[in-house]
């Protein structure tokens, strides 16, 4: 029996057992569809988070006081050493490193903002003009500490705060009171919404000097640094650590976190999550495989007389085996393709419902789902097919 005839004959058989075939195809399709949709969700979530995290800066390094890594910190703690604070001088020093494009010292606190008969507590960032580009923020109006204005009592307002305090009038040029000091509104930030749990629409930014005075400190909360290029990130990190060690009398008491390393960690975790979810969905494919096996076994029993007849008119065991395997192949193939389409449709619906979630199933997942469906389908029909092939013709013919 030729391969074409085998495939054609078994296709006709599959088509003639309509309900039975439909159920298997459906089970297969749901399994494949589940893998496709769930990996689309997983990968979508991964891309969403990475996009969010990338949007907070480019080639970003964050310097913070204290040693967060292993060696030395324990001994340091035992000996009663406390980490040295980061200072503005440290920040200026780092700004001069060749790998650094720009830097921004940062202090964070809370204070009461009042103006136009309104009063509310706001998050206050103290920094310099470069914070805006480093942190990928944008000014909708005005500017912040532009050329030479570093020591002026200027304030930039988050979009929502500007809207709240000056709903009808221009915010730029207005005077506001923050804590005990008075500031001139010089800029309004564009609305960005929340990224990574931090809403830039509800902050205000003031010059670092004023912030340190207001919060009565000489130390910095963080130093944000933008490396010149992606390849400068790691050298910049080493240079920063070396330079701070030197100015801190040889102590390694600062930590540098790179955006890249965090991104990688996120990526790895979410990739693993996607994989795990795909694995769970793949269990349904195994269930579908068991269904295929069961249905094929029933088919062999139901068609025993037919198998005997085929042998009587000259079918070899191989012919019988191939006919049954081909049936399973069709069922799995149609199920897999249908499932793939269902999965793509599901992903599309997710993207329509949640436009910010880029729910595209990764190619590897779609290919793997289809391959696993075909493989389990074929594997599951191995036993029934060889049972059919081994049937004794005389015994089989006497059935029914």
């Amino acid at each position: 029996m030729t391969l074409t005839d085998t495939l054609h004959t078994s296709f006709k058989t599959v088509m003639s057992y309509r309900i039975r075939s439909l159920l298997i195809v459906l089970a297969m399709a749901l399994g494949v569809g589940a893998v496709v949709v769930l990996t689309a969700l997983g990968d979508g979530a991964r891309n969403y988070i990475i996009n969010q995290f990338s949007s907070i800066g480019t080639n970003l390094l964050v310097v913070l006081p204290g040693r967060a890594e292993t060696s030395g910190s324990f001994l340091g703690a035992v000996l009663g050493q406390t980490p040295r604070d980061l200072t503005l001088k440290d920040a200026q020093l780092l700004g001069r490193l060749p790998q650094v494009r720009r830097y921004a010292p940062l202090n964070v606190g809370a204070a009461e903002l009042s103006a136009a008969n309104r009063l509310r507590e706001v998050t206050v960032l103290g920094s310099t003009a470069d914070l805006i580009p480093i942190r990928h923020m944008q000014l909708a109006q005005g500017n912040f500490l532009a050329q030479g204005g570093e020591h002026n009592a200027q304030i930039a307002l988050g979009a929502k705060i500007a809207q709240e305090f000056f709903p009808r009038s221009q915010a730029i040029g207005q005077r506001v009171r923050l804590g005990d000091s008075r500031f001139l509104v010089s800029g309004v930030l564009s609305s960005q919404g929340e990224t990574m749990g931090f809403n830039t629409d509800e902050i205000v930014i003031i010059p670092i000097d004023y912030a340190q005075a207001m919060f009565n400190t000489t130390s910095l909360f963080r130093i944000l640094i933008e490396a010149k290029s992606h390849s400068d990130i790691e050298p910049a990190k080493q240079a920063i650590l070396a330079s701070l060690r030197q100015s801190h009398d040889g102590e390694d008491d600062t930590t540098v976190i790179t955006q890249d390393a965090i991104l990688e960690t996120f990526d790895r975790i979410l990739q693993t999550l996607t994989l795990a979810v795909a694995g769970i969905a793949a269990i349904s494919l195994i269930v579908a495989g068991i269904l295929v096996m069961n249905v094929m076994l029933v088919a062999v029993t139901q068609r025993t007389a037919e198998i005997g007849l085929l042998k009587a008119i000259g079918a070899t065991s191989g012919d019988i085996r191939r006919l049954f395997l081909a049936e399973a192949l069709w069922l799995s193939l149609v199920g897999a393709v249908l499932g793939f389409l269902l999965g793509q449709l599901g992903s599309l619906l997710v993207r329509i419902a949640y436009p910010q979630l880029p729910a595209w199933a990764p190619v590897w997942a779609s290919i793997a789902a289809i391959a696993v469906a075909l493989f389990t389908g074929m594997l599951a029909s191995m036993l029934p097919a060889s049972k059919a092939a081994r049937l004794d013709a005389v015994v089989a013919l006497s059935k029914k």
Partner: protein
Amino acid sequence: MGDQAVYALNNINLQITSGEYVSIMGPSGSGKSTLLNIIGLLDKPDSGRYELDEKLVTDLSETEQAQIRREKIGFVFQSFHLVPRLTAAENIELPLLLGGVSPEQRQRRVNDALNAFELKQRANHRPAELSGGQRQRVAIARATVMQPSVILADEPTGNLDHQIGAEVMLLLENLHHQGTTLIVVTHDRELGGRAHRQIGMRDGKILTDQFHDTH
């Protein structure tokens, strides 16, 4: 279960010449079907030799035996054994399909068979839509479509009424007239009596083996 071995067939010595018309008769359980199945290579004797066309076939591989069944032997059964989901034409096509015959050839030969057995009108009917006589005609068409040298019929009229059974026997005898060896197992003395050679069996043994020159 006794401790005495029971033989479906025992000590059979039989030679059938090409082109013969043989009937095998005997009571139920006498081993008629078993003998026919061995002749048709569906069953294997536990011991003994069987030569077909002067070639020892008992020791051939399963695949080689299947090929002989496909090319030289046509089976006709009491219960027709048509595949219920296939049309008459598709049932007739089956041996050609198994033989790897090209689609054009298949179409042509199925058509010829449908015409020869007056089944043209029923080509696209399924077995359930056919009468018993029509079903057996489809089965005979299927058995002959590969132009076998031997037709083996096991109670071909057993499920048909007398009149239709006689018609079916005429069809089979027609094949014999065209040169095919015809071996028919039957209970019916009258039908069996039409054969040129009549074999009587009992308890797995051949009791009588008579030639009648009736024609």
